[in-house]
């Protein structure tokens, strides 16, 4: 049979190596096991084909393509008017809502599950680039100290002669990073005293935590990531403290090795806000990376792990952290610290140096200043004023530490700040007598840190 205009009522199969050209075919079931071409196909029943080449517009419903290993090959355009679900998980493409959901990784790059794609790191200076004050200081003891901008050395409890060095290092930094922070045991190595700990810490301003907040009802899930290594491998801990009237802490642990690793920890949502009753420039959060501490302390070693708890009595220290203080020149290295919305740690967001510096200057600025005038008597402080302007505006009215007067005449050496504001201040050097007066002060610091 070579041509027919209409076929119907067949009760036996048409078989054999024969061409069949027809106008309309209506059948409950068509089985085709050779190459075959339809120009228009409308199948409402079950259709099975080993090689189906569709050149026209067809309507197929309830189509199952292939078995366990068969692919669907489309050589031309394809359109799915409904929702395309891929795999057994939840990757879906929805044309109606123009959304793709369920993607976590593209080309080995983790994709944020929510939030913004730029400026997503809540922490400042996570790559340890900025160190305005100094790049190294040894003999660190009980007093909090900022070596790096925004990241501080902290020590609690009563220590003996044990001390530490914090420094900005470059040699051996992990790939993509120029700098890292090193904390090194540098004093008399000795067992860590009871109820003590050494931390690396940053406080975060409430206004920068809004992306991690869920309106006025609580906080959203967020993820913290960092690169670290140490000469004393073992279990170390970090603690996130939510500040405000309803302070809470979340403490977790990680396994440090002698090689750089990237660590990630998801911080679950909670019902209490970051910094609840605080003003927008208040400290809504602290993060503490424990470098050394008393793991057996009843005060700091017993916090509940991996759970939001009430007002913290201290931070967790583990056994390995105990040996840090008793090991001469033990080192703890860290960089690439990032806190962002969601449960997917994205690659560390490297910011240009100038932008990172500007962010840090909200909390610390250096300045020099001078003034000239004529005093009409001794001890006058307003006869030779100078003005300092802060750019950008600082978080709060800063504490000022003046340098020494590097040049001048008719001065007692005392300089005072007047009309202090977030945007700047007036300063004057005290005249030692009447007459012409001028002065210039060297490197001075305005700090609005936490």
């Amino acid at each position, binding site marked *: 049979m070579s041509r027919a205009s209409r076929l119907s009522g067949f009760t036996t199969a048409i078989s054999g190596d024969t061409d069949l050209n027809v106008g309309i075919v209506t059948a409950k079931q068509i089985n085709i096991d050779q190459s075959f071409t339809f120009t228009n196909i409308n199948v409402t029943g079950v259709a099975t084909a080993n090689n189906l080449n569709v050149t026209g517009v067809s309507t197929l419903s309830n189509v199952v393509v292939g078995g366990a290993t068969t692919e669907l090959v489309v050589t031309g355009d394809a359109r799915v008017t409904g929702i395309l679900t891929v795999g057994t998980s939840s990757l879906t493409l929805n044309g109606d809502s123009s959304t793709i959901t369920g993607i976590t990784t593209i080309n080995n790059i983790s994709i944020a599950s929510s939030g913004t794609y730029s400026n997503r790191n809540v922490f400042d200076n996570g790559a340890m680039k900025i160190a305005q004050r100094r790049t190294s200081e040894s003999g660190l003891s009980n*007093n909090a100290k900022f070596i790096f901008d925004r990241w501080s050395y902290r020590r609690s409890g009563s220590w003996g002669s044990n001390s530490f060095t914090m420094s900005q290092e470059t040699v051996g930094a992990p790939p993509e990073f120029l700098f890292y922070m090193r904390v090194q045991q540098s004093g008399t190595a000795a067992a860590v005293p009871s109820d003590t700990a050494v931390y690396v810490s940053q406080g975060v301003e409430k206004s920068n935590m809004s992306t991690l907040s869920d309106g006025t009802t609580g906080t959203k899930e967020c993820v913290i990531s960092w690169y670290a290594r140490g000469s004393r491998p073992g279990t170390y801990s970090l603690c996130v403290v939510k500040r405000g009237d309803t302070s809470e802490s979340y403490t977790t642990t990680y396994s440090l090795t002698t090689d750089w690793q990237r660590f990630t920890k998801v911080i679950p949502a909670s019902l209490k806000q970051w910094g609840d009753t605080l003003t927008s420039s208040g400290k809504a959060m602290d993060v503490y990376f424990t470098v050394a501490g008393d793991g057996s302390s009843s005060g700091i070693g017993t916090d509940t792990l991996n759970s939001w708890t009430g007002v913290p009595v201290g931070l967790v220290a583990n056994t390995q952290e105990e040996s840090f203080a008793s090991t001469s020149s033990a080192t703890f290295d860290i960089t690439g610290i990032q806190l962002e919305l969601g449960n997917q740690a994205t690659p560390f967001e490297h910011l240009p140096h100038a932008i990172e510096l500007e962010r840090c200057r909200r909390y610390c600025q250096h300045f020099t200043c001078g003034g000239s005038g004529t005093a009409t008597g001794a001890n006058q402080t307003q006869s030779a004023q100078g003005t300092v302007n802060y750019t950008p505006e600082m978080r709060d*009215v*800063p504490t000022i530490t003046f340098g020494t007067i590097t040049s001048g005449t008719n001065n007692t050496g005392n300089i005072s700040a007047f009309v202090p504001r977030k945007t700047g201040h007036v300063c004057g050097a005290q005249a030692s007598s009447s007459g012409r007066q001028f002065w210039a002060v060297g490197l001075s610091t305005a700090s609005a840190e936490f």
Partner: protein
Amino acid sequence: MDEMNVSSAKYYKLEGASENEGIIATINGVEMQIPISTGNSEYVEIMRQVDAGTLSFEESVVFTP
């Protein structure tokens, strides 16, 4: 847990002024000029220590304008 060793603190103001300009304090061995601001960490810590009775203000300094 944060340690801030305040060894001295005194208010300062200009002669004739009704309000203090700030506090001159020695913290961790360094002389600083601290604003009277509840958002300033050093000011908050000084007032905490004063309230706790572990620190007392010295006699105020009055500067000649």
